[in-house]
């Protein structure tokens, strides 16, 4: 069992009448990359600020390496923070920015020179030491911020939406580089983001947050394939949610004429109302009616290049979203009648 | 600890004001602390002193005249600086703000010599003109800050909806400039009413404004009449500044907001 590096126990943080973080329990293990994922206002940045020591919890405790640090100010926690705006000191050179933390720790000059050099090499900016932050591009500034936070080998690395200010292509490049650096250094990392693709691609575990609480905590695949709640199913990836009534332990009637078979972990209670979610990429377009298919009329099409998003309506009025890989097996146009294959094992039962 | 220092410093800044107010109610001409009683005689003295009464009227005319002139002139200049697409805006701005930099005694003596050369030694016009020049930088600065924060796209939106330039100015620009205009009015008025050095040079006993009259009094007499006068000034000023903060939020005029 890996040891716990960061622990939040029953942490609550109120701002006036608003509860930003609600009785949160969270354990972060050594060396893992954990993402706090959620929409704006869900409390993920507040959680990060609690760990960093920029705000104090209204209730609860925070432990780092088993030591209670609740009430300990930020400058004594020994963490590394990368801010969304990078916060590089404009009046200092790149070198001095990176050396800042070491100077605060009274490291001898030779050691500072060596470590700053290593850190800049790690982020591939060893030639830019003398420049000012204002002279660097956004991507380079972000790397300096990373080097600055890592150079003194903190226990935990905290990143507050560091890629948000970059354009798409740069964001993807930095995402890969970030992961590579994190793996090579092996540092425990907490990453705040609202971008689920980022979280899925980078993390060992994801904490999906909403309204100050963790909705689901688990590995990316688990979060994606087995969302625990409607919120998670909606927030992560796209999905269709269908409502029906269980008529057998493995059969759900969506309407009078439409009954589908589902394979789920727990047997359904007959007569119970259920909500089923299915990912659009699992829905297939087939040529004609067959076992496990449903008839639907195309309402909307959004061409996305590698695939087309098809929005179609079932006989009972419920909408289904399907991703059809291009080139499509049959011609698509609004109003067309199509047959959708809904594989029994693709369904997730929502709590 | 920082807070303790700040409180002490603010106390230092307000100490004289407090002392003046206390002394103004002193019953005798000889000052003592703690005061021996309470009396309004110095207020009566101040308000009935003919020289003060004349000076107060002068102050009213001069300030009203100066502000009435400086506001439109300064606003026009601020708009020209912000929107006029000038080639060297900072140069023009510096020029407009230059009276701030000139020592009061230099401006005062200069205007005195100028008035004498034009044979206008006793004229109130020179006084008002000098006040306009002294007050103009404050007006320009206040309105310019407001104009800079004015989003030009709002005016474009109004134009796209069919408003003529004059209507745009009246219905969009002017209302949005209100904080700056209010601050400009406040500054211009207060600076003019309190202007002393230049006015000392170019006014005489007939045309002098209130601060100059008070100065003459202080130089010659030592009774607390000036304390009473000062307290009246202080009360009026505090009220104005407090009002300005309530309605406009002085923080917005002076500080950068995130």
């Amino acid at each position, binding site marked *: 069992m890996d040891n716990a590096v960061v622990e939040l126990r029953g942490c609550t943080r109120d701002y006036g009448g608003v509860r930003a973080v609600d009785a949160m329990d969270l354990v972060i293990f050594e060396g893992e990359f954990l993402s706090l994922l959620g929409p704006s206002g869900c409390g993920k940045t507040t959680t990060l600020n609690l760990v960093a020591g920029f705000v104090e919890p209204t209730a609860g405790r925070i432990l780092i390496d088993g030591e209670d640090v609740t009430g300990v100010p930020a400058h004594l926690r020994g963490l590394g923070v990368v801010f969304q705006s990078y916060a590089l000191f404009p009046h200092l050179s790149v070198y001095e920015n990176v050396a800042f933390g070491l100077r605060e720790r009274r490291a001898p000059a030779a050691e500072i020179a060596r470590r700053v050099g290593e850190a800049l090499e790690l982020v591939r900016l060893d030639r830019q030491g003398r420049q000012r932050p204002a002279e660097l591009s956004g991507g380079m500034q972000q790397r300096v911020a990373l080097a600055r936070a890592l150079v003194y080998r903190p226990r935990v690395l905290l990143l507050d939406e560091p890629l948000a200010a970059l354009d798409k292509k740069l964001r993807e490049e930095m995402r890969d580089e970030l992961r590579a650096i994190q793996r090579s250094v092996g540092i425990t990392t907490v990453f705040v983001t609202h971008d689920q693709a980022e979280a899925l691609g980078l993390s060992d575990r994801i904490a999906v947050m909403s309204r100050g609480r963790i909705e689901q905590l688990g590995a990316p695949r688990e979060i994606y394939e087995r969302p625990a709640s409607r919120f998670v199913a909606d927030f992560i990836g796209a999905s269709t949610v269908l409502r029906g009534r269980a008529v057998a332990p493995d059969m759900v009637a969506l309407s009078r004429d439409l009954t589908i078979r589902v394979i789920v972990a727990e047997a359904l209670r007959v007569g119970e109302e259920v909500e089923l979610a299915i990912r659009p990429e699992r829905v297939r377009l087939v040529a004609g009616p067959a076992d496990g298919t449903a008839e639907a009329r195309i309402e909307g099409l959004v061409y996305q290049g590698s695939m087309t998003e098809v929005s179609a309506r079932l006989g009972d009025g419920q909408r289904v979203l399907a991703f059809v890989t291009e080139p499509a097996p049959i011609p698509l146009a609004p109003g067309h009648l199509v047959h959708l294959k809904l594989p029994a094992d693709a369904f997730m039962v929502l709590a | 600890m920082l807070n303790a220092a700040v409180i002490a410093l603010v106390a230092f800044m307000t100490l004289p004001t407090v002392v003046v107010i206390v002394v103004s109610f002193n019953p005798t001409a000889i000052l003592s602390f703690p005061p021996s009683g309470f009396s309004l005689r110095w207020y009566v003295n101040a308000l009935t002193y003919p020289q003060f009464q004349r000076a107060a009227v002068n102050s009213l005319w001069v300030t009203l005249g100066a502000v009435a002139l400086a506001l439109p002139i300064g606003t026009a200049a601020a708009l020209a600086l912000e929107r006029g697409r000038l080639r060297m805006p900072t140069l023009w701005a510096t020029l407009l703000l230059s009276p701030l*930099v000139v020592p009061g005694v230099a401006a005062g*003596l200069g205007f005195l010599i100028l008035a004498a050369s034009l044979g206008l030694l006793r004229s109130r016009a020179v006084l008002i003109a000098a006040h306009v020049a002294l007050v103009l930088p404050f007006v320009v600065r206040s309105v310019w800050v407001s104009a800079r924060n004015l989003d030009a796209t709002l005016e474009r939106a109004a134009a796209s909806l069919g408003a003529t330039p004059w209507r745009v100015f009246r219905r969009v620009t002017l209302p949005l400039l209100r904080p700056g205009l209010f601050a400009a009015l406040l500054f211009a008025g207060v600076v003019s009413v309190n202007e002393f050095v230049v006015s000392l040079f170019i006014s005489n006993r007939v045309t002098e404004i209130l601060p100059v009259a008070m100065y003459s009094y*202080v130089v010659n007499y030592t009774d607390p009449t000036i304390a009473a006068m000062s307290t009246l000034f202080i009360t009026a000023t505090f009220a104005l500044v407090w009002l300005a903060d309530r309605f406009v939020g002085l923080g917005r005029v002076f500080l950068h907001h995130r």
Partner: protein
Amino acid sequence: MKLLLLPALAVIALFAVALGCLLRYSVLEFIPGSLKTGGFTLDNFRSVTAPQYLGVIWDTVWLAAATTALTLAASYPVAYVLARTASSRVRSALLVLTLAPFFTGAIVRTYAWILVLGNAVISWPIPMLFTERGVLVGLVHFSMPTMILLLAAGISHIDPVYERAAASLGAKPARVFWRVTLPLSLPGIVSGSLIVFAWTLSAYPTPALLGGGKVQMIATVVKDRGLDSFNWPGAAAFALLALAMTIALLAGVGRAGARAA
């Protein structure tokens, strides 16, 4: 649009003409006992270099420097709290308390110090009124509002995230101030100091009233010569000196500031 600038420029032109008169008179000969003047002469400027006047100039510069330094030290804490406080009530209170003295005018404020320093209200162990010490106190008090506002404006432009970043890197609050806040507030410090210094060089009411004739500064000399002795040419020379010093100051640091940027 550009034409809107004209009225303001006309006002400034008038102001410039007044200064021009000053210049003209400074090179004319003073005829004692009358306002008429003689011909061209540089005597007025030569008299400026007379030892007693050089002494006044030196005293003025020294007093201005001392005032600036003390005002800066006293104003920074207030400016910092004003710029950084989260409470709008504290901010309002500080703004009102800072601005109000600024608005009550020179006579009122100087008179207040006459009362305080004149042993009328508080008994001082050492004489304060009519001494350089007293004038210094009055000047600092007068300059604080300006300095506070300029400093606060500068500090409020510093993004608080820098202070957070410094703390996250291990700097304790005093170090954060020294390494981040202070350097980043330097533009405000420079502009505030300049303005206070330049203003103090030409200050009149404070030294006149609090100094009681015993403390002479450049401005009091101008007034004495100009209004009391009717020596307009002589006064003009001195006034121009004050003007020249002020302009040189502002220009010099303006260029230094541009070079540092």
